[in-house]
């Protein structure tokens, strides 16, 4: 891949290229629309390259444990999934959390509940952030366009292998299936994969099973402290026109792109509206969110789900005082700039 080269690709093709550029060596997966082309693309790449490991597993839990096994052995491993497959994979994700194993997954959200649609949604936010029976010590990135999809996929490998934890790139069916331009960047240095369970002749035992309440509580407390430190390093939000905004839109992923169009259009008419968009959905930039609404009288939460993001926003803004909250919730359906604009005009 040449630096600065612009190519016309689908989101799935971009994710695959980014993973290869980030040095991914092993892929375990089970096909599911809208991410299947990534698995197919990796299988084709592995056919012509002996250093790439590929296994189509019997289901998503097995794919997740495959990633863990390879990562424990020192390979840069990853997977992709969506919808019900994402849910099934959560057991492996909490094992990765418990054992502090690097884990990278691209998720192409599709409509739920259950098999739902193969098209699009933002309904997998809560399971990406907190799925499983752990405390959700993972990083969730929310790309809003194809360029970010490329950059964040590479970044996901860096974060996962630097801090040893699960990292999700939480995309969606639109991002996966759409075709558009992407500019390839010069490769930055990415944290390498190292063998975890075997270091030279020394064997390392990692636990995920404890006898005592106090024992596990102490481990969780330590993980929590660690996660807070990591959070300070990786947390990222995009704040647009918020300093004097009377209304601040809260949106993430592709919806944030539509929201940006709406906000820019109203700004050009002199209307005081702004946009807060979390780039990392976990950790969520609550402090910056509070700053963003400093002069606001109202907020508008727009998401393709019924309040999964909204609850996160309102919880983060708790204590901010008199703030009217409007919602544009469209579960499993895209939201257009025009719809956000109309809603904002009604609020102004």
């Amino acid at each position, binding site marked *: 891949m040449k630096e600065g080269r612009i190519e016309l690709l689908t989101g799935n093709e971009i994710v695959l290229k980014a993973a290869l550029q980030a040095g991914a060596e092993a892929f375990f997966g089970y096909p599911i629309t809208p991410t299947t082309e990534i698995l197919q693309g990796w299988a084709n790449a592995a056919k012509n390259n002996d250093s790439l490991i590929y296994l189509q597993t019997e289901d998503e839990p097995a794919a997740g444990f495959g990633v863990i096994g390879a990562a424990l052995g020192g390979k840069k491993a990853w997977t992709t999934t969506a919808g019900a497959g994402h849910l099934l994979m959560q057991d492996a994700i909490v094992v990765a959390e418990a054992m502090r194993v690097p884990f990278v997954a691209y998720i192409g959200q599709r409509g739920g509940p259950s098999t739902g649609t193969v*098209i699009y949604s933002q309904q997998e936010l809560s399971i990406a952030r907190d799925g499983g029976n752990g405390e959700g010590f993972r990083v969730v990135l929310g790309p809003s366009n194809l360029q970010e999809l490329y950059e964040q996929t590479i970044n996901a490998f860096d974060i996962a292998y630097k801090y040893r934890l699960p990292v999700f790139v939480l995309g969606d069916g639109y991002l996966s299936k759409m075709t558009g331009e992407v500019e390839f960047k010069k490769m930055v240095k990415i944290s390498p994969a190292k063998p975890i369970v075997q270091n030279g002749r020394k064997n390392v035992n990692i636990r995920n099973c404890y006898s005592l309440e106090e024992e596990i509580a102490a481990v969780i407390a330590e993980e929590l402290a660690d996660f807070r430190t990591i959070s300070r390093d990786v947390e990222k939000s995009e704040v647009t026109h918020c300093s004097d905004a009377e209304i601040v839109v809260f949106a993430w992923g592709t919806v944030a792109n539509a929201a940006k169009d709406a906000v820019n259009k109203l700004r050009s008419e002199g209307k005081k509206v702004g946009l807060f968009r979390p780039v990392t959905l976990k950790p969520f930039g609550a402090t910056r969110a509070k700053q963003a609404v400093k002069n606001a009288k109202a907020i508008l939460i727009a998401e393709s789900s019924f309040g999964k993001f909204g609850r996160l926003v309102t919880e983060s803004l708790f204590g901010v005082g008199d703030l009217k909250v409007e919602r544009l919730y469209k579960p499993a359906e895209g939201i257009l*700039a025009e719809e956000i604009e109309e809603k904002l005009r009604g609020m102004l």
Partner: protein
Amino acid sequence: MKVKILLAGEGGQGIQAIAKILIHSASKSGNKVVHLPNFGVEQRGGVSLAFVQISSEDISFPKFQEADIAVLMAHRAIERSKMHIGKNTKIIFDNNIILVKELEDFKTEKIAIPATYLAKERLIPKVFNMIMLGALVAEIGGFKERDLKKEITEYFADKIKQRHELKHFNLAAFELGQKAIKKTRKDK
């Protein structure tokens, strides 16, 4: 150039092929492009939509409310396209599949292309989507015929390798589409 196009038909008709050829050609001549396919779980037989945007400026969102041009190629596609057809949307439709009567709710410009008939009578039925592409490209304007022909040949390269005459059929269909829309315009 700035145009929003909705392509709508049945899965298997080659709706997404039209979109892919169009955006690759437009991109090579310096435009920003975005294509979003939209279909159900079926490999074939469901309604297949393609949202295509071509612009000299950045395109932020892959979907849009109102199309500038809607290309309709199946009965069931009409219902699904309704919400994207406004008073300024031009409709290009295959009048061997869709009756003018079916479109009477839309008070907007409608251009009939007998693509199914032309493909069947003069070429092979399968290439009727390239007839629609030809008509669409002529309607948008600003494309170079040579660029598009190159794109069509590249897109079908694997199929052409197996059956050489497919190159001729697809390119001839593309030309036929361009002529057909000019004829329709003249007859009006």
